[in-house]
């Protein structure tokens, strides 16, 4: 068991980092494998470091402590008709903002406007020397200094402890409409996904359901504009418009990973549409399940206990389940170690590889 500290202020967070030779920040542990580290590492629970520090709806920006739950954030943004367009995952499960940045996870909405990396503006963090630093900015546009906020996206807490984050947000479209478009096989799915992505329709989300037999395409915009667009899509790809509650349930199930094996593993893979058929075949052979998201740019794979993720033959990050954090990782360039020691000279944080 790892020891856990629970700082209640940013000052305490800094003190905790300085006082602990081996440390890793953890949020709500909704991606448990990311913080499953050797027992000598002290975990820093961010649970008490929560709350929105500044929210400027007119600026499309907010700053919040890293432990703030996405649920609370989404509620505050919704009051002003705004949202995080990358559709954060595991909101109902309790995921935090900091954990989402560190894990670099995006939901289906990433398709239209981009992911965490595209909306993060600034970060206040504790580096491995125990210094509290703020890089990036608090305005929607800033080009001063290197873009550390982007680098922290997907960094798994291995380069610094995120204390506070500034994000850009967007106004939420007045309405959405989800279409369910059946497909026969993964080649047909690839075709539909690539064609739909290149149209005038501007889909808001474009995913292949874990059942593998239908694409779900979400439109977002003014209520009176969407039915016409939907009719045009259905004329090209037969399917149906889903009732609002059915659509909401489908997207929520995807965002909460309710389709996965409860005792199995969950992995993230970066993908291109052309790789979809081969990956699907491998996952089927392993008796696994997969959700293809963001127009086939990402795959979430769940394998039953005992199946070996290395067989996926693409680089994969384990979010949940036993075994290595990374499968089939590309060789790490020397610059990776050099930047690690620039930010964490004492190796206070675990290595990216573990």
């Amino acid at each position, binding site marked *: 068991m790892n020891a856990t500290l629970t700082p209640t202020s940013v000052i305490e967070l800094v003190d905790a980092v300085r006082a602990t030779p081996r440390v890793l920040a953890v949020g709500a542990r909704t991606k448990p494998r990311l913080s499953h580290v050797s027992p000598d590492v002290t975990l820093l629970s961010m649970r008490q470091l929560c709350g929105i520090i500044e929210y400027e709806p007119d600026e499309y920006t907010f700053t919040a402590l890293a432990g703030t739950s996405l649920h609370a954030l989404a509620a505050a943004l919704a009051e002003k008709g705004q949202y995080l367009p990358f559709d954060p995952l595991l909101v109902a499960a309790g995921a935090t903002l900091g954990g989402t940045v560190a894990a670099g996870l995006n939901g289906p909405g990433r398709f239209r406007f981009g992911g965490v990396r595209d909306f993060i503006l600034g970060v206040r963090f504790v580096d491995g020397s125990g210094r509290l*630093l703020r890089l990036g900015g608090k305005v929607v*546009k800033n*080009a001063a200094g290197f873009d550390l906020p982007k*680098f*922290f996206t997907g960094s798994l807490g291995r380069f610094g402890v995120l204390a506070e984050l500034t994000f850009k947000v967007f106004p939420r479209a007045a309405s959405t409409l989800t279409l369910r478009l059946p497909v026969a096989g993964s080649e047909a799915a690839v075709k539909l996904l690539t064609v739909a992505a*290149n149209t*005038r329709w501007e889909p808001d989300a474009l995913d292949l359901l874990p059942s593998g037999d239908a694409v779900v395409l979400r439109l977002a*915009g003014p209520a009176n504009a969407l039915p016409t667009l939907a009719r045009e899509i259905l004329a090209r790809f037969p399917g149906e418009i889903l009732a609002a509650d059915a659509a909401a349930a489908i997207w929520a199930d995807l965002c909460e990973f309710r389709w996965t094996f409860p005792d199995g593993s969950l992995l993230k893979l970066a993908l291109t549409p052309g790789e979809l058929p081969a990956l699907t075949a491998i996952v089927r052979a392993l008796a696994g399940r997969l959700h293809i998201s963001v127009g086939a740019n990402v795959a979430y794979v769940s394998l039953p206990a005992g199946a070996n993720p290395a067989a996926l033959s693409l680089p994969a990050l384990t979010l949940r389940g036993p075994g290595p954090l990374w499968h089939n990782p590309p060789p790490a360039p020397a610059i990776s170690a050099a930047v690690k020691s620039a*930010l964490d000279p004492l190796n206070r944080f675990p290595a990216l590889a573990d």
Partner: protein
Amino acid sequence: MPSSAVRRLSALLPADRLLWQPEQLAAYQSDALTAYSALPLAIAMPETADEVIALVRACRADKIPFVARGSGTSLSGGSVPVAGGIVIALNRLNRILRLDPAQRLAVVEPGVINLAVTTAAAPHGLHYAPDPSSQPICTIGGNVAFNSGGAHCLKYGMTSNHVLGLRAVLATGEVVGFGGPSREQLGPDWCGLFTGNEGLFGIALEITLQLLPKAECFHTVLAGYRTLEQAGDAVSAIVASGLLPGAIEMMDALALEAATAAVHADYPPGCEAVLIVELEGPREVVAADRVRLDGILAASAPVEARPARNAAERLAIWKGRKSAFSAVGRLSPDFIVQDGVVPRRRLGEALRRIAAMTREAGLRCANVFHAGDGNLHPLILYNGRNPGELTRAEALAGRILKMCVAMGGSITGEHGVGLEKRDYLPDMFSADEIDCLQRIRAAFDPLGIANPGKMFPGGEAPAFVQHGLHPLEKAGVISRE
């Protein structure tokens, strides 16, 4: 005679692609911030990535500083050579290596011109979103180094938001591949860190860019306002309404006057400010959104709001906007373009304060800017031949930047820190924060040979010469914003 360092480099390139005669070097001594200049030892003109890699490795072996160069349109002194170093001019690496319409991406060499990407993508109904006003001339390599912006950042972001993958040779000599063809990735965002490095990490050799479908339909409105505050309030009202325009741009009276004179742009008379707002998307969406936009603009009491009725009128509106700065440049022998950011709601206040500071300095200043992003581009006019005016202009530029930081903004939205703003970096970041940035720089470039003297305060400044229009602007090829 070439120096011994140049003689060693000459083993790597044929003689006609390694220039070292003084008259050949002169063309490269500045960038678009013509205030600074320095003579390099030599200009290397590689034609392949392997030649670039060999040059960087040779520079490293001999500790020769190098400055990568695209089209030299940097407005912050980023591509000014380093005395005693070489310039690696990347213009001949100008191939589009791959255009994949199905995956909506392009893989390009760094010397490819920004607009060439959109031109190549257009037959497939696609475009490359970042659109700096220098897009007919600036390179993707320069855009990546500066994380360049344009008029459509509010909705689509900057260069960084469109770079999916990079192959680069670092100043250590290591060749790395970051990101890839997928829009998603695993692990830390190396492409994000590399983009905006201002040439301090190494040289980008191959860049994978995401392309977007071209919007089907546009609705572009030009609205004139009696006062700057009214225009600023209209921006706030649009933003508060929940609309997400592709662009919200503003020009002040002096800029309007200049654009009228230069390109015969036609603006409502008696306005302190003009706003350009553009909606874009599927025609059904734009039709619904324009009803709301027109309502908001009508309620904002403009002198006049003019929607573009066709593509030609839309282009005319943008032409006035994009040529405004070079137009202002014609009003004055010399000028400085600044690039600060303030919170959007404080735009009106910022403009008033800039006007007051300008009066105190006894100078004139025009403003053309990305109102949707709060990204100001004050253009300070002066005459370098009048003793003391340059100093007063620079002091004014500095006061404006400090005001931006004090308002919670930034010293640069899209032009980068470069040489020009390096002394203002400490206004934004603490000593520890700058130390952290420097450590990262040292990880990529332990010898300090990649574009040294830029971004960080201190260090020797190259010779100060003159301000004025970029030669290409004088020729009317490009304009600045």
